[in-house]
């Protein structure tokens, strides 16, 4: 008896340790960034653009604009495709008798899974070869967000599918039993009920864009100017951290930018948690 409790206490001790270590890592990483980064953050830091050259001078204005630009354009490409695909896979695919379509659906599922596993540098290479070079879009927001869209489409598909699956089947049956067709049922009953879950997924994808570096490293060009069209190149905040850390020696600026970035991620996570806890409350 005693030995059993002793084993339990030893095991639980290890688990507490694991939990504590995980939190310490987080506290250390985030704390370090904030402690080093906060002194450099001021209003000026947000309202001025970086300077050229190697000094690392200037603020982050243009990188904030580029980041925002990237989020909007990427989501514009990826959201309809991702949500549409998820709707097809959850709401329609089970009910098709057509053999060809069934095969296609299997292939599509495989596609989504594969896509989710592709490392981002490969998306970068692909984006560079297709959008930057072959299609001649150059280093631009357009090229980068098309490549970025490929990265987040599987994220959106998966989270949307989860959200749709969690809609009680009673809603669908209730609607169909009233003589609604599939699309009417989806549009009027299922999508509204899944709305929060879907928006969580989209927000999550926005987070991926904010923190992505490898893809944009080879498709966005890194110009520190404020972009003025889809064809302009640019530098996202994450990319700016890379440039600051690797090219200049402005470590303090890199940390300040990283702190802003982490702050943004925290805000996004809080929003997601708020949305999901509201779902749970329902």
């Amino acid at each position, binding site marked *: 008896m005693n030995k059993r409790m002793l084993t339990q206490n030893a095991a639980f001790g290890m688990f507490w340790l694991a*939990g504590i270590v995980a939190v310490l890592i987080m506290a250390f990483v985030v704390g370090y960034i904030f402690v080093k980064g906060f002194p450099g953050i001021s209003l000026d830091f947000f309202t001025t653009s970086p300077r050229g050259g190697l000094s690392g001078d200037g603020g982050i204005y243009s990188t904030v604009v580029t980041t925002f630009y990237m989020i909007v354009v990427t989501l514009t490409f990826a959201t309809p495709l991702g949500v549409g695909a998820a709707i097809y896979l959850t709401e329609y695919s089970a009910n098709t008798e057509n053999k060809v379509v069934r095969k296609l659906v299997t292939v599509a599922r495989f596609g989504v899974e594969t896509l989710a596993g592709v490392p981002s540098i490969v998306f970068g290479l692909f984006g560079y070869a297709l959008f930057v070079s072959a299609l001649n879009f150059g280093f631009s927001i357009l090229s980068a967000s098309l490549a970025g869209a490929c990265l987040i489409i599987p994220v959106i598909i998966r989270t949307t599918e989860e959200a749709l699956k969690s809609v009680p089947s009673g809603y669908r049956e209730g609607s169909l039993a009233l003589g609604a067709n599939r699309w009417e049922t989806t549009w009027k009953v299922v999508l509204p009920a899944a709305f929060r879950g879907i928006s969580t997924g989209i927000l999550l994808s926005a987070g991926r864009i904010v923190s992505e570096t490898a893809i944009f490293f080879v498709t966005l060009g890194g110009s520190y100017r404020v972009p003025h069209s889809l064809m302009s190149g640019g530098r996202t905040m994450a990319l700016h951290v890379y440039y600051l850390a690797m090219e200049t020696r402005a470590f303090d600026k890199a940390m300040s930018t990283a702190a802003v970035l982490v702050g943004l991620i925290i805000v996004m996570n809080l929003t997601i948690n708020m949305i999901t806890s509201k779902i749970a409350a329902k």
Partner: protein
Amino acid sequence: MTSGTRRTGLEKIMKTVLLISALASVLIVLLIFVFTLKEAMPAFREIGVWKMLSGTTWRPGNGEFGILAMIAGSGLVTLGAIIIGVPLALGTAVFLSEIAPEWIVRVVRPSIELLAGIPSVVYGLFGMVIIVPLVRMIPAPGNAGFGLLSASIVLAVMVLPTIANISEFAIRSVPRGYKEGSLALGATKWETISRVMIPAARPGIISAVVLGLGRALGETIAMIMVIGNSVILPTAMTDNPLSIFLSRARTLTGNIAVEISYATGVHESALFATGVVLFILIMLVNSSARFLLKKGAQ
């Protein structure tokens, strides 16, 4: 009746539109593969697939394009990350799902989610400034801090949230009945966790680890910042075989990112070939995971 035909028409249109979006993901995968492969073809043709895969020297200037060292680098750094990260992540998952009081869960879980959102550049920066100097203090000839160990540590932290989150979810979704059944037989909490909960959650835990593995294999920016990027087959630096992890190395992803800016001709093509190898490697990992899961489900 006209309303009826309009409704049916819309239904048909939407069905087609949605099917097309579902197929878009296939199209993207195909496009990626075809494009990368197309760019990689000249290298495969001129160098030879086998020669590339088995070659240990990478000297584009001399026309030598062996990527075995990079495959080894990617493999070892991932192995290191798994060795360090998996116990920590699984421990955290069990802690969160079964042990920690609710208020602690409410603090720890968001912290871990936050780790997942931090950009990899920041981890790289962090690794360069904190981890590399720490590792440099290990006495061994040639140890400059940059290398597999530093990279594995950074990577372990990066995959921690992925593995911990999914495993926690898997453990939480074990039917309550199992737990109650075990406790009702007079099992202690730990016996219940180790003999019933974890075995029942195994498929989820495996897929969590595999997903982490995939992320580790695919990580780029943080890796080039801390791993040293030397193209050498890692070897032990002292009598202790573990010192292999003090060796510098280059990952497949790093190979692409480090050299793509200046590469031309066959060299550039060889980098795309590296991408193809990476792509196939990850697909292998994922499908073996699916195979494991299927076997587990039976």
